[in-house]
């Protein structure tokens, strides 16, 4: 077991990487080689508490490792979650500055705006859809604080699931209008399609990711809350961002999201 002081130290270590925009060695390299997933979430909670104390506000949770490929790569059978804060939001069509980040990558996702609290365990995707007010397209910018995006599962959990920036689309739609598992998306950079996928790439259906989130939160007595705006996981692979990139995500029926990368 790791004590509260050690949890705080590791949280400070990771936040310093984010604030100073520099890579840090993964926690399991030297600081705590035997870090567990549960301890990873305790560190994440400490980081969340620190940000809330600074006056930051939570927009909603986000899901990570929701694709079969990523779960196999990390050898896990459950996704992970982290939290998106207000300071991470970029306006649709806005700019993402490389100097604010370490080695950002972008992926296309569907976001859910929750209309009623969802409390696990035993929540299903269908229940999530019934309690979803609307869905909207999003581009998530992940930026692991670890060297070369190289981490183990407890490391990435501790690092707030690599959460960094989010661009939400500006049109919301009712989820009943869609079969979200077959909503197609393309991710283009400077006019060239780099990645593509459909909703089913997220645990078979994006609503399944929100259901899993509710069930995971239930283990610590928490729930998905009315008003949460939740990123459900990537439909596409992640693409490394470079200066002057014009990034466009197109989603069938949901619309487009874009941003430009600057120095």
């Amino acid at each position, binding site marked *: 077991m790791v004590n509260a002081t050690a949890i705080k130290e590791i949280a400070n270590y990771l936040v310093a990487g984010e604030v100073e925009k520099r890579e840090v060695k993964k926690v399991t390299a030297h600081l705590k080689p035997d870090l567990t997933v549960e301890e990873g979430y305790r560190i994440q909670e400490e980081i969340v508490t620190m940000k809330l104390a600074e006056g930051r506000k939570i927009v909603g949770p986000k899901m990570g490792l929701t694709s079969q490929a990523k779960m196999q790569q990390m050898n896990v059978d459950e996704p992970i979650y982290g939290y998106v804060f207000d300071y991470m939001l970029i306006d649709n069509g806005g700019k993402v500055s490389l100097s604010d980040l370490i080695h950002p990558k972008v992926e296309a996702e569907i976001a859910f705006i929750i209309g009623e609290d969802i409390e696990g365990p035993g929540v299903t995707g269908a229940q999530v859809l019934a309690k979803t007010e609307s869905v909207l397209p999003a581009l998530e910018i992940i930026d692991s604080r670890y060297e070369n995006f190289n981490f183990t599962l407890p490391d990435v959990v501790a690092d707030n699931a690599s959460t960094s920036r989010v661009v939400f689309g500006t049109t919301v739609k009712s989820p009943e209008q869609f079969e979200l*598992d077959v909503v197609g998306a393309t991710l283009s950079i400077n006019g060239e399609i780099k990645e593509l996928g*459909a909703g089913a790439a997220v645990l078979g259906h994006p609503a399944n990711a929100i259901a899993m989130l509710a069930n995971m939160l239930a283990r610590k007595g928490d729930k998905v809350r009315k008003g949460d705006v939740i990123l459900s996981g990537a439909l596409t692979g992640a693409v490394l961002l470079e200066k002057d990139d014009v990034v466009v995500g197109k989603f*069938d029926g949901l619309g487009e999201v874009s941003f430009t990368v600057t120095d």
Partner: protein
Amino acid sequence: MATEVTTKRKQLAEQLLQAETTLVGTLPLTAADPDLTVEEAYAIQLDNINRKVAQGKTIVGKKIGLTSKAMQDLLGVNEPDYGHLLDGMVVENGNVVPKQKVLQPKVEGEIAFVLKKELKGPNVTTLDVLQATDYILPAIEVVDSRVRDWKIQLPDTIADNASSAFYVLGGKPTRIEDVNLELLGMVLTKNGQLVNTGVGAAALGNPAQCVAWLANRLADFDISLQAGEVILSGALSAAVDANEGDTFTVKFAHLGEVSVHF
């Protein structure tokens, strides 16, 4: 010289037919003949198609292959290829692909175009294709190679009718104006488990663009696409190995589902 070429072509065409009939994969044609060109390979394909037509088969459409960047990179090419669809290749939605008719089958999800008017290249544009299309359908293509272990180079697969075997059409006929082809999503499941997802843009950016490519490429052989022809426009996700007992279902946005059993 001309006789020599003809003899070579006949031999290679025969070699492929033999493999198809006996279900014993052949060595790559390019192993015996490293200089085999793409144009010669199309001539071999056409020889075998003409032979089958002479035996009573009917050409019902075309298929486009190598439409994804991943497949083109794998074979080191920068254009797609095509093959012919014959009446015997159709499997009804939900039905079985007979084991004794395939060697090493793989499954892909695609969008099928049915034309309402002739498309004759050159200079066919994507817009021409949209105007000439009667409707689209969700499709499963069962590809198979008569070349042992799929050890194919571009001329091998072209001569082998672009590795065509069977195709299944399903769902409901949908007007092209009711969908955004580029963003049309699909999910492929095998025995109920998700295998991969895809989007229309996976086929050269837009499946209609693939059909335009086909019409223009066929013009080199003085062939046009006819009203009523079925055109499989190219895989939207990676091909998946099919084994005895497997059931594959492809679900498309807006178009419905199509499935096949092995």
